[in-house]
């Protein structure tokens, strides 16, 4: 176990390092370079051309942790060490440290996405299992078609339609924001319910358009497992039906879905950008897009880095719990090289 854990942890750390390097390269490849960018931002806010080189590099140092006058390798080391200390620079658009913006935005996104992922997978798995059990029935054929159809609707199109019908037309849900304006963010039940109310439509959009794909995968896996010999043997041996359904079929059909869970974690975090923009839900994705539109590179890179960090952590958790369910994953590396 400890070796596996070590391997996974170092992999996660290496991924984080790689993404940090990618953001560094991206800042370097800003059209015109970081200096031009800072100069343009300064000229926009002060309105004249009298900006000294020293001012430019000072501001670049503060907002992006990069001093353009230093040689490249010094810039890189500086940048990395600031990142590791949790200093993500300063947003020029919001005139605040990037880490502060992120700390208050991130919980909303995590809240939204963990509920959506949980619901998508549990509903999809249950639906897929029922479909596989009733294979060939009218219910199975019907839900298969519906699942394929739901899977072909992009979540943002569903979100737009949901806003039009459920929010504007019927007035059931709020169309934007993550909590009622002017409400006191206190630990009261009414506040909590209002927060859930505001999150309902974005969550619904992800769940409705995502569960079809999960259900179809689960259905396929379960049908394949039901056809295996060991299920027949278990039947002949007189293992109770419920035990076959949960321990034999359920477990073996669920294991291959692990990869799709991992991919969908990344996908959901990506989708958060579009969803949060549509619902004006001020999570990390909303800030990322604001930053892109304002060409606020420090915030852009910071938000991107934090979204990636969140995905890394989620995948790490999935990975570590997975090895508890399926002991085979720990002994994967014993193959000959050709």
């Amino acid at each position, binding site marked *: 176990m400890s070796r596996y854990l070590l391997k996974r942890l170092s*992999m996660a750390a290496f*991924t984080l390092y790689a993404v940090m390097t990618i953001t560094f390269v991206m800042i370097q490849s800003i059209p015109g370079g970081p200096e031009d960018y800072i100069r343009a931002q300064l000229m926009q806010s002060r309105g004249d051309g009298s900006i000294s080189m020293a001012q430019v590099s000072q501001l670049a140092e503060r907002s992006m942790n990069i001093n353009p006058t230093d040689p490249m390798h010094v810039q890189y080391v500086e940048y990395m060490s600031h990142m590791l200390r949790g200093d993500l620079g300063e947003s020029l658009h919001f005139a605040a440290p990037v880490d502060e913006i992120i700390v208050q935005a991130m919980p909303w996104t995590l809240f939204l996405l963990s509920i959506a992922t949980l619901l998508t997978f549990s509903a999809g798995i249950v639906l897929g299992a029922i479909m596989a059990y009733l294979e060939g029935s009218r219910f199975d054929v019907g839900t298969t078609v519906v699942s394929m159809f739901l899977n072909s609707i*992009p979540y*943002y*199109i569903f979100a737009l339609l949901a806003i039009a019908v459920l929010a504007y037309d019927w007035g059931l849900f709020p169309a934007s924001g993550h909590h009622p304006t002017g409400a006191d963010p206190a630990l009261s039940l009414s506040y909590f319910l209002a927060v859930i109310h505001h999150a309902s439509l974005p969550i619904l959009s992800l769940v409705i358009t995502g569960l079809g794909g999960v259900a179809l995968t689960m259905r396929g896996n379960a049908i394949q497992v039901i056809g295996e010999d060991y299920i027949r043997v278990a039947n002949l041996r007189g293992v109770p039906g419920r035990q076959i359904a949960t321990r034999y079929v359920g477990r073996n059909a669920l294991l291959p879905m692990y990869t799709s869970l991992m991919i969908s974690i990344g*996908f959901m975090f990506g989708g958060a950008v579009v969803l949060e923009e549509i619902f004006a839900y001020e999570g990390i994705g909303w800030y990322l*897009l604001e930053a892109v539109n304002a060409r606020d590179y420090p915030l852009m890179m910071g938000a991107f880095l934090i979204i990636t960090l969140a995905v890394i952590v989620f995948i790490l958790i999935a990975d570590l719990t997975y090895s508890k369910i399926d002991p085979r994953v720990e002994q994967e590396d014993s193959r000959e*090289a*050709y």
Partner: protein
Amino acid sequence: MAERTSTFQTDAEPDRDDRITRSRRELYRERLDLFVLTPLRVIWSDWRTRVGSLIILVWVFLGTVGYWLVSEPFPGDGPRMEPAFQSLEFPLGTTIRGESVFALVVQATPAMLVMITAGAVFSVAIATLVGTVSGYKGGRVDRALTVVTDIAMTIPGLPLIILLAALIEPTHPVTVGIVLTINAWAGLARAIRSQVLTLRDHSYVEASRIMGVPTRRIVVDDILPNIMPYVLVNFVQSARGVIFGSVALYYLGVLPFSNENWGVMLNDAYDSFGVFTSWETAHWILAPMFAVVTLSFGLILFAQGTERLFNPRIRARHAETIDEDNMEGHR
């Protein structure tokens, strides 16, 4: 399918003089039957692939022939905000500027198709290359490629694409397609790797290895044909990913508006009216939504059905050839 080709070869060798006596035309007919007509028949036999390919064909038709038939829309072509299904001239109504909504949808199709194809080809090619090499070679090469794949898989795609789009501002549909699939290959590469892991120890692969066939030939001749079906299914899946991604990013205004795209339409309609304030204005925003959903529904139907097409057991049951005696005699 490697098994298929190899049996074909070994069986065909003794029949060499038989082959010479047969006319060239017959040979072509047989090939046509084996590689074109039989797959078509199998596609037609499953309702999913049948409906799916019909939908895709309609869009390909609209994007090629339709593109030339439907003239480019200009502001002031018709009345402003005419609802859908009122006149033949503007079947899907008009925009606030009097452009035909139908013409806008059709004119955006070719760029969409190019973008989808470019993205799907790029991601599938990279995935196949990385997945097969990594799975087959094993050892240090595998470890290095797995690390790269895992990183690419972990980085959340859409935020990365948004950053790249903001930095390089791609305008050509091919570039946009490639940017949109910049790390979409990773999941597929990993899946292909695990498929190759089970294939690399098959007896015929081992035989090739003992005979000293170079690695490149083993991968191309023995491994690739077996994973092609899986790759093709995923080609369709990543095509769907490109549609979703491009429309989202054009809708958000992250990608520069150089080509007409259904996402540009969505954005335009949304900016003028919000989501939709009344059913009189709804057609403008519903038309591109309908386009996205039908095309991706077609692709999903096709992908689901294709898995049957390539499953050898099912295929054998469905594949009747036009001239069974000929095939029998040949065998």
